[in-house]
């Protein structure tokens, strides 16, 4: 048991913090939220040069040979500054899935393209009406026809689909009704993509697949993988979101403490009032709980250990605690915290989006109940 970072991890964290502090101001975040694409190609290339896009891939695919825990540290720093863009979709949702499930040929082809910042990927998983992350809720169908697959249906809440060069599309394969994942080029005829207007200004999309034709070689790994690998993708994604949340919440805590020390009422800093102190103590306790449960699960993922139970604990707690932390942060900040002038709203909106992504507290309580045989 060790709760501190290794020297190498500390260095990664410091580099990331310095770089992102320079590159990702709130002004930039706002511009990206308002822009069509939601990311900066220039910054994307810089991140590629830093080796971030391939950080967790093996060297032979142009990667940095680091593990999921290291990636988590990077995600934490990205969460800290509310970094917009397709990093999560490309690297975590798609890149790691290709690494996990792809054929050798697919890995050789796609992973270096990701690492070099040449292609943007995403995962098209959820669908209208989809709320329980079970195989039975996948209605998008892939039908075999003359050596190709014809894919039909609608995907919803697909992040960054509007800029993706490739979609990893989870579909039910006729006639077995099993689950397969297809690599679909974003520009294929029959794909209609609409960016949804969301609370966080992130780019979640509706993707309509209308008789999209995918050649046989574009099945990720093998046909009829089943739900198991998809569940693994969801678990990794949930922990990735938790890592982002750790950064978000840590920054919210720091911001709130700074404010409580500096804001004076009744001739004294409000941080000297016991009720404010207790709110801050509660926030710090929630943050540490989210941090440790998140990194426990991330550590297990990086070791390749089964961790459905730990993921459920982390995402349930992160989802619940983040709401409590932000509620307290708003209460302490007072009225300035509910304006667009102040930074807090970026964190509030993103924490809500992260809570809703890849299973919320209710969902993971249910998962945990199953895991521990309730």
């Amino acid at each position, binding site marked *: 048991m060790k709760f501190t970072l290794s020297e190498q991890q500390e260095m990664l964290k410091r580099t990331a913090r310095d770089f992102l502090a320079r590159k990702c101001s709130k002004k930039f975040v706002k511009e990206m939220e308002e822009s069509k694409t939601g990311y900066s190609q220039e910054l994307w290339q810089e991140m590629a040069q830093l080796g971030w896009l391939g950080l967790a891939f093996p060297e032979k695919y142009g990667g940095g040979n680091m593990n999921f825990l290291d990636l988590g540290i990077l995600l934490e720093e990205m969460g800290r500054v509310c970094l917009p863009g397709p990093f999560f979709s490309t690297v975590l949702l798609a890149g790691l899935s290709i690494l996990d499930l792809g054929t050798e040929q697919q890995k050789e082809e796609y992973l270096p393209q990701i690492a070099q910042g040449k292609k943007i990927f995403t995962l098209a998983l959820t669908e209208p009406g989809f709320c329980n992350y079970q195989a039975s809720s996948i209605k998008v169908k892939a039908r075999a026809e003359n050596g190709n697959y014809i894919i039909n249906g609608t995907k919803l809440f697909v992040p960054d689909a509007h800029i993706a060069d490739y979609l990893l599309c989870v579909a039910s394969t006729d006639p077995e009704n099993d689950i397969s994942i297809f690599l679909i080029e974003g520009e294929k005829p029959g794909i209609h993509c609409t960016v949804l207007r969301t609370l966080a200004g992130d780019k979640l999309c509706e993707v309509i697949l209308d008789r999209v034709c995918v050649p046989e070689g574009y099945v990720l790994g093998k046909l009829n993988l089943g739900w198991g690998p998809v569940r693994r993708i969801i678990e990794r994604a949930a922990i990735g979101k938790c890592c982002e949340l750790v950064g978000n919440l840590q920054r919210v805590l720091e911001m709130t403490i700074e404010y409580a020390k500096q804001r004076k009422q009744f001739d004294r800093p409000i941080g*000297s009032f016991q009720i404010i102190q*207790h709110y801050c103590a509660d926030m710090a306790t929630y943050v*540490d709980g989210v941090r440790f449960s998140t990194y426990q699960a991330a550590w297990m993922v990086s070791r390749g250990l089964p961790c459905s139970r*730990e993921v459920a604990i982390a995402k*349930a707690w992160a989802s619940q605690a983040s709401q409590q932390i932000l509620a307290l942060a708003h209460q302490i900040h007072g009225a300035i915290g509910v304006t667009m002038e102040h930074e807090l709203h970026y964190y509030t909106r993103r924490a809500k989006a992260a809570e809703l992504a890849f299973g919320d507290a209710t969902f993971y*309580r249910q998962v945990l*109940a199953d895991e521990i045989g309730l």
Partner: protein
Amino acid sequence: MDFGFSEEQEKFRQEVRQFLEQEIRQGLWEPMCDGWIQGYNPAFTKRVAQRGWIGLTWPKKYGGQGRSHIERLILTEEMLRYGAPAACHWFADRQVGGAILTFGTEELKNEFLPRICRGEAFFGVSMSEPGAGSDLASLQTRAVEDGDYYVINGQKTWTSCAHFAHYFYLVARTDPQAPKHRGISEFVVAADSPGLTRVPMIDITGTEAWNDLFFDNVRIHKKYLIGEKNRGFYQILHQLDFERSGMERLMGNYVLFDSITKFARENKLTRDPLIRHKLAQLHIEFEVGRLLIYRVASVMDDGRAPNWESAMSKAFCTEFEKRVANTAMEILGPYGQLTRTSKFAPIGGLAAHSYLGSRGYSLQGGTTEILKNIVATRGLGLPS
């Protein structure tokens, strides 16, 4: 970061489990809530001592094993999981021994530590007074120098384990003129000292769990002063951090937690989504609390005294323990109120007992409010 245990640590955990399971199989004791503070069982303590499991982290020359705080945490975690009656050695093992080790003279260490490790010297802790609870520094019990002795006069309350302890760890005022934090000293006092009277306090569960102690010209030899005269308050803070840091703050009523989970499962109550979610929520909070406590042990193994970290873990975890009792009562409905002696009492009446007993968890060893003050000021740097 590393969230695993070494092979040796896993082996140690198994060893502790096997020992405890065998004890239960042999009918030597029954698992209980609060066994760490109320489980009086000198024979059990002796058997634990024979395995070298008291003073596990202390140096070998004083009878300890020189092992890590993480390993001690594994040991105490398992003791609590099985509801072992460990009160005879818990306080000496957790904090008094550590205080003697950190601040005591060589003579004190040699006198007490080996006997604690052999399971022969039981300690209670005597800090609070009727007028000094959260504001411990305002304590009034006096210790006045008289030749080679200190003469103690005053009243202590909430003294743990007083009905069987051989010794008390005592804090008293040695300089009434100094500012209140700077006139306090720590002592070891023998329970059979002339002039020392014990009056049991009956707690809300009807248990004789704590005691008032009255000191009427009790003489303590100067060699039983721990550490520096008048520096006691600063030494206490160190000790309180250890007092707050342990797994007993999360698992004091683990036996109830385990029983209600099994009860709900066996009686198919977990088919009710509300009960299912309530229990799952408790299991989530339990794991979060457990990590907060392991973090404290990891801080100690890095050679730092736990500080606001143990205040944080205790504040969080004792609130969890209270929720365990509340949730158990909710699940059991009207049956929850039945005490152990009733033929209708489910899970041995544990819920009713713990519902009442758990009210004290967030008061002992620092109230939740004091602990949050510590996190805010010492941990987060907010102005006091």
